[in-house]
C-alpha cells in the first residue's frame, strides 16, 4: 500500500512555490527608504508587536532609515545606528526628505476589492468524510476569479483527495458579506481503508457547482463558507453525486 502519489499537500507546496516566486519583490538592497520625524518623537520597540518594550526614542527632525517590514511593524535604523521596530501608525506621521508625507495605509476595503492573489484553508464535510481544503485564487476582475484547489478527504471507510480548478463569480463584491457562485472541474481519488477487504482504488473525473459566502473581516483577512455539489463521472453505469459543506479563512496579498 505504499504507492507514491500526488497528494494535495504536494499540490499545495507546488502552488505555494510558484506563487512565492511571483509575490516576493526584487529588492534594491542599498537604497533604503528614509523618513524624517515631524511629530514629537518616534518610539522604537524591541520587537515587531505592541507587546514588546519601547527602548529608544528618536526625536523630531531626526532622519531614520526604514529597513524592512513585518506585518504592521517597520524595522528602522537611526543616525546613531540604533535599530528598532516602529508601528505603522507612528511611521505614517513622518515625512519623506522631500517633504511629502509617508502614506502606509493598512490593507483597506479598496485593497480587498482590488486584491489579485488570495489563499485560504477550509474545513468541512465531503459526503460524510472529513475534508481539509486549500486554495490559491487569482482575481481577474472584482467579480471573477480563478482558483486552484486541493482537498484531502478522510472518511470512515475510505480516504482520498480532490484537486481541481474553480471559477468563482461574485455578483456583489462590495458587500461585506458577499455571496458567490462557483463552477469547476477536477479529479478525485478514492482509496478504501487498509483494514477493509480489498476494494479497488479509483480515480475519476469530477465536476462541481457551488454556492458560498465570503466576508471581509479585517485588513487582509476574510472568512469563507461554501456548499458544493459534485458529480463524479465514474467508470460504472451511473454517476455519483456528493455534497460538500465547508468553512474556513482566507487572506490576500
Amino acid at each position, binding site marked *: *500500500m*505504499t504507492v507514491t502519489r500526488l497528494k494535495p*499537500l504536494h499540490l*499545495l*507546496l507546488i502552488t*505555494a512555490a510558484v506563487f*512565492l516566486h511571483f509575490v*516576493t*519583490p526584487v*529588492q*534594491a538592497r542599498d*537604497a*533604503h*527608504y528614509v523618513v524624517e520625524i515631524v511629530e514629537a518623537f518616534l518610539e522604537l520597540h*524591541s*520587537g*515587531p*508587536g*505592541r*507587546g*514588546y*518594550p519601547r527602548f529608544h526614542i528618536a526625536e523630531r527632525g531626526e532622519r531614520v532609515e*526604514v*529597513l*524592512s*517590514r*513585518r*506585518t*504592521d*511593524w*517597520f*524595522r528602522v535604523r537611526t543616525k546613531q545606528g540604533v*535599530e528598532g521596530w516602529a508601528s505603522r501608525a507612528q511611521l505614517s506621521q513622518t515625512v519623506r526628505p*522631500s517633504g511629502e508625507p509617508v502614506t502606509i495605509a493598512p490593507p483597506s476595503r479598496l485593497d480587498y476589492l482590488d486584491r489579485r492573489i488570495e489563499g485560504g*484553508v477550509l*474545513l468541512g464535510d465531503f459526503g460524510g*468524510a*472529513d475534508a*481539509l481544503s*486549500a486554495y490559491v485564487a487569482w482575481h481577474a476582475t472584482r467579480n471573477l476569479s480563478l482558483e486552484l484547489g486541493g482537498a*484531502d478527504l*478522510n472518511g470512515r471507510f475510505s*480516504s482520498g483527495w480532490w484537486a481541481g480548478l474553480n471559477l468563482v463569480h461574485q455578483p456583489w463584491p462590495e458587500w461585506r458579506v458577499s455571496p458567490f457562485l462557483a463552477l469547476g472541474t477536477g479529479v478525485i481519488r478514492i482509496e478504501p*481503508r*487498509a*483494514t477493509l477487504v480489498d476494494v479497488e482504488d479509483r480515480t475519476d473525473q469530477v465536476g462541481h457547482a457551488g454556492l458560498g459566502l465570503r466576508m471581509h473581516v479585517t*485588513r*487582509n*483577512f476574510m472568512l469563507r463558507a461554501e456548499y458544493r455539489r459534485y458529480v463524479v463521472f465514474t467508470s460504472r453505469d451511473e454517476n455519483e453525486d456528493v455534497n460538500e459543506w465547508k468553512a474556513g*479563512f482566507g*487572506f490576500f496579498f
Partner: protein
Amino acid sequence: MESGFRLLLLNLSAVLGLAVLASGCSRVVDTLDEPVTAEPVIDPRVERRDVRRPKIDTENFELGAYTGFISVEDFGSSTVAGARLAYHITEGLFAEATYGQTTAGRTSFETLSGAVELLAPGERKFRYYDLSLGYNLFPGETFIGRNRAFTSSLYLLLGAGSTDFAGDSRFTISFGAGYRVLLNDWLSAHLMVRDHVFRTDLLGEDKTVHNIEFVIGLGWFF
C-alpha cells in the same frame, strides 16, 4: 496591424529626415566661420528628482525546519523531522503549513512476542501534514545573562490535517504551543510541543490516539 502602421510612419520620417539633412549640409558648411555665441534661451537648473522610490522589504513569510521526538501511540517514541512555512497575517495572527515524518517503533506486544510483526516495514512510516492558525499570545523578551535580551513570544497553534500511517491516511486535529525567540532580525529559534489527534481502528478497536511531539527548530523570515 497597429505596429505595421507605426513602422511605415517611422520609415517615412526616416526618409524625410535624411532628405532634410542632405539639403542642410551645404548651409552648415557656409556658416562654419561665424563665431558661435548662441546660448540656450532657457537654462533649466532644476535637478530632476528621482521618482523611483525604494521599496520597503516585507518579511511576512517564515520558512523553517525542525527536529525532535514524537510519541506515536502504541508504537513507542521516535525521532521526527519536519518543515514549516508560516505567513504572518498580523502581529498576532499567523497561518502555518507543516509537514513532518518519522518511522514508528514496535508495539510492546511485538517486542514481547518476538516474532510478530503488525505492520510491514514501509507501513511504519508516519507522515503528517497540517494547516494551522497560530496566535502570538505573550510577546516579550528573553534575557540570557544581564545584558543580552532576545525578542520572544509564546504562541498557540490549532490546526487540521492528515496523518499517513499503517497504509491509511486519517483526518487529524493538531494543537499545541510554541516558543519563538528571534536570534536576529531574520532568524528565529523555536521550541514546540504539539499533539496530533486522530481516530484509528488499527489495533482492532476504534479509538482516538494522541501523538505528542516535542521539537526544536529554526525559522527564516523573508
